[in-house]
């Protein structure tokens, strides 16, 4: 009896460990951020892109309107790719696109808009990237769909036709 307990418990322990490691193998090791949880938008102070005047976030985002906050930068290559999609979204005029200019040179940013067009209703500046952190953003480009001061959905990376279709569904 005594001799049987030891091999038995060892097998069970190895069984448990094997099970846990095996389950760990199935899990994806790539971190996927939570894109769907609703969160209130942060309150912050910043500067307007064109006039350089101080603005409060509460004056940018009003209740009962749908906004798309887009974090962009002139040095960011994927931002160039997604820009035509933003221009198209703006044509329908159903969503207010707000730009957050991320860690950018003002002159380059203005040239970027001159070359590719300006889909933004308003643009504010995030010079040191701290406002993006307040939003829980990872980098550029990133877009937030906002309704009633709540983040409905977060899009990390450049927008594409599929995502634009999804946004259009939300707007309707």
């Amino acid at each position, binding site marked *: 009896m*005594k001799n049987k*307990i*030891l091999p038995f*418990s*060892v097998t069970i*322990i190895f069984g*448990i460990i094997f099970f*846990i490691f095996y389950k760990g193998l199935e899990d994806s090791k790539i*971190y996927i*951020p*939570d894109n769907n949880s609703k969160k209130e938008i942060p309150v912050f102070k910043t500067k307007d892109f064109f006039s350089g005047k101080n603005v409060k976030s509460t004056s940018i985002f009003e209740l009962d309107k749908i906004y798309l906050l887009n974090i962009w930068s002139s040095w960011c290559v994927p931002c160039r790719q997604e820009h035509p999609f933003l221009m198209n979204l703006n044509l329908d005029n159903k969503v207010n696109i707000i730009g957050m200019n991320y*860690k950018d040179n003002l002159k380059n940013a203005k040239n970027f808009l001159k070359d590719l067009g300006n889909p933004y209703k308003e643009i504010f500046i995030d010079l*040191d*990237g*701290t406002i*993006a*952190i*307040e939003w*829980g953003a*990872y*980098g550029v480009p990133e877009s937030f769909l906002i309704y009633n001061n709540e983040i409905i959905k977060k899009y990390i990376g450049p927008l594409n036709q599929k995502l634009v279709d999804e946004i259009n569904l939300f707007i309707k």
Partner: protein
Amino acid sequence: MKFLKFILIVISLFSFSTVSAEENDKRNKITKNLRCLICQGQSVYDSDSEFANSLKIVVDKKLQEGLSEDQIYEYFRIKYGEWILYDPGLNKNTYILWLLPILIFLIGGAIIYKSFIIKNK
């Protein structure tokens, strides 16, 4: 223009020196416990990415606002989720992580007890 730059550098140098060593230590400790989310495998402290640099500034700001270390962790946990912390709390996703060592310890202890102490009797 050069003169202006020089003045700017001098001002920034002086503004850095006002940061006390203690606050710096605290900032380093906090940023070492935060994961750089876009450069996995590195802490915010180790990383020099845009994301990590901004995060360091935010930690500085929060310290200046008088937030405690735990409050700062909580702030980032709300913004980015549990993953940003290197020291995860006990919840339904992490209970195996926390309980496994205790479980192994107990089972190991039981084996030792069974095989040595009972045998000696």
